[in-house]
């Protein structure tokens, strides 16, 4: 019995090992094709593999919120709005809910912004709860599975825990009503309360026009070794350091502020994107949450991302072999960062750059309007398609209830 188990496990491992073949010479740079054991997963076309039904919610859940604050279209949580727009006009959309595999609820929970532009999550649980109450009372599909074939976009800091402070988010946990649904979120950390099994991790939104407006000629030599622009100490919220980024960003600063190889500072230069294209390594350390839009920027600009976030789950981790592309550094190894980076053999670095130069890789990180094949929208749909067909057990008997509708903090139960 053990032998078979071992053999099966071994077979699974072998099947799941990603093989990389250096194949095509792109128009500008020889790139390497990223391929999974089942073929080029990134280039899969989801059309025809799944059907999504989009609930028609009253505009107070989506359009009116957006009208109140147009900044929601440009910040890094804008994926929820663009996903809605994409699905409305996508060929995977179906108007017949009986044949739908997945159900989408367009509720913009991350659009209540402070004057500075940061989203406040305090009303989000109530908003979500109200939306779910609406769909469960107007359509029978929620009650059929208690949301197991529904998916929601929760791109906020800690996903469906709906708080920006990690301790409070862990305390709240994922909203009870979403316990069975599939969550599409930017947050991903292994063994964390706010990452549900079966969630799909997406990259944060980065405006593609802005990125393409700052491209420089490819033959500009990469002369910066390590590049980073951003905060090291969050003086407003954590003046002494140690809380913000678990001390990792502060460690980077204290150890490498005198090092000429490390072009790191808190500036906001106008040439930020151009400089990234002139750098070999771009640091992507965690902040208050482990994910960062720098990953998207680094991948698009061909700069090898150096990810300093313990146990992070990166976007589309089942389709993109991040180990081959980026460099992972434990937070406790930050003082040795320069040794780690200089000890990478040049062939490995060149190979990572070739993988990054692959246009499918760059396309998979972006949310262009209108949607293009292989972009992040399609990767989400691919992820959803890979979870099909639904297990029979998700369908509940009529009248059976699994979720506790009154669980959670009292404030959440108030109507929105």
């Amino acid at each position, binding site marked *: 019995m053990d032998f078979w188990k071992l053999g099966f496990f071994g077979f699974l491992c072998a099947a799941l090992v990603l093989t990389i073949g250096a194949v095509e010479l792109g128009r500008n740079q020889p790139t390497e094709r990223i391929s999974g054991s089942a073929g080029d997963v990134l280039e899969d076309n989801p059309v025809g593999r799944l059907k999504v039904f989009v609930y028609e919610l009253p505009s107070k859940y989506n359009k009116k919120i957006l009208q109140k604050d147009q900044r929601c279209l440009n910040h890094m949580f804008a994926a929820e709005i663009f996903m809605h727009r994409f699905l409305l006009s996508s060929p995977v959309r179906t108007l017949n809910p009986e044949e739908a595999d997945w159900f989408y609820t367009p509720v913009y929970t991350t659009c209540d912004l402070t004057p500075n532009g940061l989203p406040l999550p305090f009303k989000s649980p109530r908003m979500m709860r109200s939306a779910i109450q609406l769909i469960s009372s107007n359509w029978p599909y929620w009650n059929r599975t208690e949301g197991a074939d529904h998916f929601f976009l929760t791109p906020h800091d800690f996903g469906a825990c709906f708080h920006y402070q990690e*301790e409070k988010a862990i*305390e709240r946990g994922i909203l009870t009503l979403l316990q069975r649904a599939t969550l599409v979120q930017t947050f991903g950390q292994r063994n964390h309360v706010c990452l549900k099994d079966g969630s799909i991790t997406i990259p944060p939104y980065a405006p593609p026009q802005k990125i393409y407006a700052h491209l420089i000629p490819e033959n500009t030599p990469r*002369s910066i070794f390590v590049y980073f622009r951003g905060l090291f100490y969050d003086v407003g919220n954590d003046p002494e350091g140690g809380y913000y980024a678990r001390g990792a960003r502060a*460690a980077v600063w204290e150890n490498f502020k*005198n090092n000429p*190889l490390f072009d790191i500072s808190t500036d906001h230069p106008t040439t930020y994107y151009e400089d990234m294209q002139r750098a*070999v390594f771009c640091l992507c350390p965690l902040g208050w949450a482990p994910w960062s839009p720098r990953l998207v920027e680094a991948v698009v600009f061909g700069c090898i991302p150096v990810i300093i976030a313990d146990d992070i789950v990166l976007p589309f981790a089942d389709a993109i072999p991040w180990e081959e592309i980026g460099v992972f550094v434990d937070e406790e190894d930050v003082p040795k960062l320069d040794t780690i980076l200089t000890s990478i053999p040049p062939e490995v670095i060149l190979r990572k750059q070739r993988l990054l130069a692959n246009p499918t890789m760059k396309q998979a990180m972006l949310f262009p309007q209108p949607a293009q094949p292989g972009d992040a929208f399609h990767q989400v749909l691919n992820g959803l398609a890979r979870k099909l067909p639904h297990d029979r057990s998700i369908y509940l008997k009529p009248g059976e209830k699994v979720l506790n509708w009154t669980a959670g903090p009292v404030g959440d139960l108030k109507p929105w």
Partner: protein
Amino acid sequence: MKLSALQQSYLNRRSNSFRGSAQLDSAADGSVKSPAAVFWLVLHGVCCLISLVLGFRFSRLVFFFIFSTSATNLYTAPFRGGTPEIAAHLDVRSTPVTGTAESVPANTTALMASSTSRVVVGRHGIRIRPWPHPDPVEVMKAHQILERVQREQRALFGVKNPRTVIAVTPTYARTFQKLHLTGVMHSLMLVPYDLVWIVVEAGGVTNETASIISKSGLRTIHVGFRQTMPNSWEGRHKLESRMRLHALGIVREQKMDGIVVFADDSNMHSMELFDEIQNVKWIGAVSVGILLHSTDSSTIIQREGEEEATQIPVQGPACNATNKLVGWHTFNSLRYAERSAVYIDDRAPVLPRKLEWSGFVLNSRLVWKDADDKPEWIKDLDELDRAGEEVESPLSLLKTTSVVEPLGNCGRQVLLWWLRVEARSDSKFPAQWIIDPPLDITVPSKRTPWPDAPPELPSNEKVSVGSQTQDQQINKHSTKTKTPRTRRSRTKRRHDIKVIGVQASTLSVSEQRN
């Protein structure tokens, strides 16, 4: 903000001590002070003092360590602080001092929920290694990585199949030669392609020129030309043209394959020039910036109005809107016509020819005797030599000028600059710029800044040339470079030199006369 238990206790104690001091104040005539109050007062005073000296954090830290409860999380990862003590405490202190009561259960719930996770929520220390400065070995490795990456980039995005650059430089030995030729040499040394440097020297091969170009590390062909360089610009231009044709003859003879660039020794070339000329097919033209030596404004005839605005000092191809060659930009020399330099050492602007050689690049196959794919619009090189008249520019090699390819974004980029600067014809300079005593008797030149004749010195001394005021500095410099053994004797001599130097000109000239 919720106060922790210890802070509460601290405040209570503070208020106690205040109450104590109030009692003291009321009983000013020495009533019995409670020892506890006194103790707390003293402690408070000491801590205030320490706070003043070391900052608020230290006192808070001390209190915390004294009164810490068991419900604290101390992360025992190895920490190191910087040299200041405060920073050390900043790093070592790893506990939530603003420890709200809720964070404690939050930590424990986090620990319970993420039993297999090694990531813990809460305050962490800032890890700093003992010597947070760059390690030279690492820096070198990083530079090697950068160099490898850039090499790969060049291979991918740069010019495919780069062709050899054949640089042709006519020169002759004179004062400014070292200046000019070093500039060209450094530019050519930076060119990332294969390079052959043909240096044609008027007046025959000399050690001067040979010593300059030998340091380049480039493949050089140094040939002499029988004639000496004449004294007038007119003559010089003519001779240079003939020298360039001679060099083309060498290219033809040796069947060199590449792109011929006319790198005059006083010109300045940009690196983009060498990248751009790789695009030439047969013959190309680039825009040359014309730099005229500055003169008094009185020599420039000021014309009214528009002449000023359109005077762009550039020679090069002119294109129409579809980037086709339609003509040539030349330099408008009329403004300087009255007062242009005739002789090489005139203090007047040196004017360029209509079209300078340096603005053209040729595919070396054009001058070969028998190349299969030579286009029919090229004249044979031998015909030009035999003609005897001056060849003003490579355009004379062509039967039609419409085949010239404009380079550098159709001439919009100026890729090199033309300049002619020379010293007086009678200016002398030490051979190969090494001062080898004893100096010959030199004719004093009125314009050189150093004294007309060197001061009289013992033979094994380095001659100090320099004005009287600079004597000391130069002597100091020369003494520094000598061994300490001779320093004492040197300083003694220095005083002698100073004394002599003051009267150098009159004394030594009079000596020489004798």
